[in-house]
């Protein structure tokens, strides 16, 4: 499969300290991959560096063949890349609907507002409330929903299940399945690999700012020893 998103030898820095030491990553169109790893190994940094939120970066990031390194941050979304941060980034001074409508539509094929409200009925009910008055789970739904409107092709999703009740985690899993069915390409960062195993095609295992393993979901049972060692569980 030709890779839609191809990252090679990506390095990134926070000030003087290097956080990524040559990350290699390939994601095919419509594929959903999950990056596993302990806290602080550079999972979030990988997503932020791909998105361009971290500007001190080196290496290669290609989206559908296009070199993304020189693209300014506000033009990155136009090339089809979307990011949902771990803290969700819901705006307190905007209503739920204003939050939803905030990211400009960059391409056709995104969900309409009606489709979104059908998928997330809670958001319809609360559309005039301030965004941060929603529960944690609803905020996560809102954070994902607003990216789905834009028609991006590759979603970078950082720990969507963190701190959420099992029933909400289940719901987020359903939403991700639907996205996959629509052909969305997803790069997921997740601590909960049992959750990730249900929806991902492939796993990347990360340690010390590098990918140390890469295997399809079917290999998970054989890899448990290695996983436990690297994840320290």
């Amino acid at each position: 499969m030709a890779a839609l998103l191809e990252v090679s030898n990506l390095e990134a820095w926070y000030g003087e300290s290097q956080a990524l030491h040559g990350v290699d990553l390939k994601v095919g169109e419509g594929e959903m991959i999950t990056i596993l790893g302990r806290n602080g190994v550079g999972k979030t940094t990988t997503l932020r560096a791909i998105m361009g939120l971290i500007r001190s970066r080196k290496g290669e990031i290609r989206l559908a063949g296009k070199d993304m390194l020189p693209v300014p941050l506000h033009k990155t979304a136009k090339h089809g890349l979307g990011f949902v941060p771990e803290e969700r980034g819901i705006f307190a001074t905007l209503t739920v609907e204003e939050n939803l409508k905030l990211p400009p539509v960059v391409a056709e094929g995104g969900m309409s507002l009606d489709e979104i409200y059908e998928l997330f009925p809670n958001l319809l009910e609360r559309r005039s409330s301030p965004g941060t008055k929603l529960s944690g789970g609803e905020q996560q739904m809102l954070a994902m929903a607003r990216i789905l409107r834009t028609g991006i092709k590759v979603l970078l999703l950082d720990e969507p299940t963190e701190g959420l009740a099992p029933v909400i985690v289940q719901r987020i899993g359903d939403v991700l399945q639907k996205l996959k069915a629509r052909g969305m390409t997803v790069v997921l960062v997740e601590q909960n690999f049992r959750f990730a195993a249900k929806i991902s095609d492939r796993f990347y295992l990360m340690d010390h700012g590098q990918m140390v393993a890469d295997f399809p979901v079917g290999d998970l049972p054989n890899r448990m020893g290695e996983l436990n060692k690297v994840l320290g569980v």
Partner: protein
Amino acid sequence: MTMIFGIPIQALLGQLLVGLINGSFYAMLSLGLAVIFGLLRVINFAHGAQYMLGAFVAFLGMQHFGMNFWAALIVTPLVVAIFGAIIERLLLSRLYDLDPLYGLLFTFGLALTVEGTFRYFYGAAGQPYSVPAALSGGTNLGFMFLPNYRAFVVIVSLAGCLATWALIEKTRLGSYLRAATENPSLVQAFGINVPLLLTLTYALGAGLAGFTGVLAAPIYQVSPLMGTNLIIVVFAVVVVGGMGSIMGAIITGYLLGITEGLTKVFYPEASSIVIFVIMAIVLLIRPAGLFGKDA
């Protein structure tokens, strides 16, 4: 003569009107400061100079091009906004990554430069700018004489404040602006051109100051120092209202203007410091300001 609390009612209403006029200017100027500070995190010390620039553009436009007051009301804010946009793009935008103190120092220097330049050419004395013919004279309300132009200023600034508030709170552009105030890099990652938004915001703030300057020209004289005198009070208003709160800046502007006017009636000696006394008390009790959110 009718008296209230031993004060002639004419004097009371007269000062109330003066307070309302001053309050209008405070509200318009502190609104611009709050908008700029909210998004750019820059304390715009050049705000007084931009207000003065507005008055001068109107004055010079009339002198050299026969631009009347009504044209000035539209042209001047645009001229001052373009001036603001150029300043932001060429100079101020280079300071965003540095300590906020640099933005403050830069705009302070800019204010001194602009005011110094005008002082060099026009001296410190005020130039007269007459009230437009359609608004000259006044209306006798029976209990007091209301100059038409002053009534016009109060109504127009109220409309200007509400329009700005609606632009920020009720429009799509405003939602970009509010979101960028909270988390600029995420908004930029969504594909919104935040640097352009910053330029537009600074231009909007400067344009509001210019608009206020035109309104003020027929009331105060057009002088290079007119901004310096006013801006210190306006900073106090912003501190009382709470940095970054749009409605807070508007309401506080009017309230403090009226308070100042009433102080002139009841205890004139304190009228020039009453706003600063209120500022000190508010800072002690609610450091984030009356309408500010505790950060």
